[in-house]
């Protein structure tokens, strides 16, 4: 293709073939608020493709977000979408799902949102194995509020509230979700869009809680402050330093240092009964004929 110079930039945009994911994006809300090079949009693109590929009834798909840069995902998706409060997307989603199990409910939020202020809800949702898909975009810091450190920030990395480096250690999220009881646990980076998309399809088709950690660059804050290069360099870094290890022991997949190998893959895929099934079966067994299944649960 001919390279365009500035002069040749057309004044009006030529009609172009529509990207199939546009049907899932609230185009009237663009441009989005994410910085150039931010990984959140890449993950959202992967999600939109996953929705298309999975053949899920989009009218029965809800997305619930908390607060943060990632929390804005709900607002850009042309689905029933809920932008709730900081850390509380999971309990909102729990209520939504229990009130209408026909819905596929996806929680889409940031690392700070889901693991710090919302950490308790994450733990208990996994323990209950609530029938939700949780997509956690881990950009290793609090983006929205300006780059503070958080429970996922690597040891000795800098954040605005860790001006001398982080002396805490981060959570190993796949391990946490594994021991809490989630049915499905995977981690991919935004470099691995194909695998990520496939994982999202798989996760949405599972009962119980499915959890995907998406490692995503925050070039504007985390990368810049830690002098780790720009967005493109980070993509190269993710490509060269990730190792796919499906079924890896989750205790061995922590990301604790600024620069280290990142283990990605599908770590857990099991069939504990989801919350709704467990509730339904147990009450049916315990109560016998007295049990009335909620009419709003009927197919």
């Amino acid at each position, binding site marked *: 293709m001919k390279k365009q110079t500035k002069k040749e930039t057309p004044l009006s945009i030529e009609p172009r073939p529509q990207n199939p994911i546009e049907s899932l994006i609230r185009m009237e809300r663009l441009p989005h608020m994410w910085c150039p090079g931010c990984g959140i949009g890449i993950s959202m693109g992967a999600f939109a493709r996953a929705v298309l590929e999975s053949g899920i009834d989009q009218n029965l798909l809800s997305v619930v977000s908390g607060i943060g840069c990632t929390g804005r995902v709900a607002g850009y998706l042309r689905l029933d979408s*809920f*932008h709730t409060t900081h850390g509380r997307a999971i309990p909102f989603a729990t209520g939504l799902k229990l009130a209408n199990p026909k819905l596929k409910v996806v929680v889409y939020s940031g690392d700070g949102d889901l693991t710090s202020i919302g950490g308790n809800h994450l733990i208990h949702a996994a323990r209950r194995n609530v029938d939700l898909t949780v997509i956690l975009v881990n950009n290793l810091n609090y983006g929205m509020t300006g780059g503070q450190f958080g429970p996922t920030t690597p040891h000795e990395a800098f954040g605005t509230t860790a001006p001398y480096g982080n002396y805490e250690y981060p959570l190993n999220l796949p391990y946490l979700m594994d021991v809490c009881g989630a049915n499905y646990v995977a981690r991919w980076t935004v470099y691995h869009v194909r695998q990520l998309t496939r994982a999202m399809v798989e996760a949405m088709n599972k009962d119980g809680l499915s959890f995907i950690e998406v490692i995503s660059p925050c070039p504007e804050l985390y990368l810049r402050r830690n002098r780790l290069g720009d967005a493109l360099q980070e993509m190269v870094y993710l490509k060269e330093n990730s190792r796919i290890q499906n079924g890896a022991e989750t205790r061995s997949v922590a990301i604790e240092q600024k620069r280290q190998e990142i283990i990605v893959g599908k770590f857990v895929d099991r069939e504990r009964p989801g919350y709704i099934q467990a509730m339904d079966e147990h009450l049916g067994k315990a109560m016998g004929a007295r049990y009335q299944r909620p009419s709003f649960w009927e197919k």
Partner: protein
Amino acid sequence: MKKTNPKAKDLNHATADPKGVLTGVHFMNGDQSACEGALAAGCRFVAGYPITPSTEIVERFASRIPTVGGVFIQMEDELASSIAIQGAAWAGLKTMTVSSGPGFTLMMEHIGLAAMLETPCVIIDVQRAGPSTGLPTLPGQADMMQVRWGSHGDYEVIALVPNSPQECFDLTIQAFNLSEEFRVPTFVMMDECVGHMAERVVIPPAEKIKVFNRRYTTLPIEEYLPYRTGKDLVPWFVKAGTGRRFHITGLTHDERGYPTMNAEAQGKLVHRLVEKIRTNAEQIVRFEEEDCEGAEVIVLSYGITSRVASRAVEMARKQGIKVGRFRPIVVWPFPEKRIRQLAGMAGGFVVPELNYGQISLEVERLVAGKVPVTLVPHGGGTVHQPEDILRAIREIVRL
């Protein structure tokens, strides 16, 4: 031309679903009765977290709901329960959560969210003495301003205050109806005494119980906007899973429900959130009064304190004092118009409450110095001595 929902009067007035109605004459406490009220109103989802003195409500719901066809979930904390009910509400259910002081405080974030998203839901606060952990098993009435102002930002709520187990039933139904009609978090402000006292509770047959069912939009998808309203300022509802692909956010938003980050949108939204209650206040308020016009003193009280005050009123009447009784049943919005009128027809007000001055502030504001208003404060933990209220009555008469 702006399209709004068509007028369809009374479309949503119905009678209770018999499945949830335990018709009969019962002897039960206020907590149990409130639970029955919720079931009768059509509540089919409760998320809760145990806390004295409200626990019996969720215990009863947990045991009753699987026989009625609904869901109870015990959440990990009150932050979770107060938002889980909103998720369930957006899927179309009537929902409730229940707590007391410390848990109620944790719910403040999502009371604001419910106000902002206009999620219909009911929250019961069985008040105990505070602050903090306070007296877990003993009464207080010190959350009366918290329920009104407790979450940040400007909004209005509706709050009702029962003074008997029977009213716990009746007013919980009413709370559901109001919350559906105005799409606003609605509160039943009980207290430990009312929650734990057992009395006769009559539960009528289902066909005698009026319920207000949610108003769903009937506009076609292309014309529908989730926060467009007509004159009553209350948008009609849409629920998840109906193909409308709507978005809602706790951020300041426009009629589309999209974040709109400017002062104009903020002004418009807050104005509506506040005005939808204020302009309908006269329709919402409910109170009970006796011998107030021309009284030397009006004793204004609510909840358990109104029953203690009755004793003081009797004593004062025996001493020849003309005493009226006034009991707000809906406390927010406050019966402003009536109190302003009475301020010109009575010699003064005595306001006993289990706090150091909350509703009395509202009375003072409305009376505006025309006649004396005497607060009879109490730290909670028990109820007033009728003699303390009597003393305040006598002091006004002497003035």
